[in-house]
């Protein structure tokens, strides 16, 4: 059987205009990579939004896999933005193959 190791998967929902800042933080935490997924619409305390053209209100989902240590570094780095810019961050354990990459 193929061997797997446990890593953290972190997903961050963020204004598209701020994606760059989040991925810079990921690079700074020396995590090997990240992937961005599109998002169509949503609703939260600020009300509903839709992928509303170029109006600065659309969001993206940034996903990154990392070791637990680097995940903690990333969360520390992002902490101020989490509140000021209303990021939504979730994190959980996943099995990965070729774990030495992360």
């Amino acid at each position: 059987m193929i061997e797997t190791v446990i890593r953290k998967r972190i997903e961050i929902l963020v204004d598209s205009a701020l994606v760059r800042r989040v991925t810079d933080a990921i690079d700074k935490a020396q995590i090997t990579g990240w992937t961005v997924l599109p998002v169509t619409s949503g609703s939260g305390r600020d009300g509903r939004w839709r992928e509303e053209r170029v109006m600065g209100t659309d969001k993206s989902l940034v996903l990154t896999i990392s070791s637990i240590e680097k995940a903690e570094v990333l969360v520390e780095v992002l902490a101020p933005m989490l509140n000021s810019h209303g990021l939504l961050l979730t994190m959980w354990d996943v099995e990965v193959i070729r774990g030495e990459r992360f």
Partner: protein
Amino acid sequence: MAMDASLFAPFASPVILFFLLGLLASALRSDLAIPEAMAKGMSLYLMAAIGLKGGVAVAKSGVNAEVAAALAAGVALSFAIPLVAYALLRSFGRLDQTNAGAVAAHYGSVSVVTYVTANEILGAGGLVVAGFMVAVLAVMETPAILSGLMLARRGQGGDGHSRGELLREVFLNASVVLLLGSFAIGLVAGPKGYAEVQPLFESGFKGVLCLFLLDMGLIAARRLIDARALNLRLVVLAIAFPLFNGTLGVLVGHAIGLDVATAAALGVLCASASYIAVPAAMRLAMPQADPGIYLTMSLSITFPFNILVGISLFAALSRLLAG
């Protein structure tokens, strides 16, 4: 009597009728929707088209003192309008410093689609706007963002990390680059080069504008329906601002010697409020400000007001002033 007719003429234009269809469809909660990629594509097309056309016009007419005066007036108005708006938003509108600054920035900046629609409506009434106004449109996008931020942050240290990012966002944002870039292309290519691409950029223009305004109508009405943060005072301001700023723009236009059509267009630029470049900058620089306030005011109230009423009004005013 004649003026009356000219005030209502736009309502027989497909451009306006498609906008009304969009408003109505959203109000009825129809699922009619324009795919996002198509809407973005149409907005790129419209900007490239007016940029090119403006550049070609200036290539023909040449640059003179009038152009310089209009550019200077545009920059000054974009800087200044937020100052008055801010004061009213704080006092009459009862907004906090952050939200008042954010909203003020929107009203100092401009809406490209309002300008484009005004061009068509004015043109249909025989008023041809000078080509260089595209450059004025482009330079008016950003000064207001800076004065809005300044107002919102008085007495609070700015966020150092993001300054460079913000300036790039502001001065190199997509619409400024595309407007000025295609304006320059029009200048360089001139009427001969333009002739090659005219079939796409000129023949299709009004039709694309129809579909784009259909989408704007859908979005504006949907946002109004979902709005939570709006109150009557803000609605009043969202109508008072274009009336006041538009009148100011027309007056300044006449004062610096612009012709009837061009002064009316300057009025429209002042009256219009941004709902693309400025919201994006605000999300970066002032994430605490509430899009439910600034977007709803600019997009769902001021934009329809200008399209349906404001443009014709400023045209009439400009004619009146010209005697």
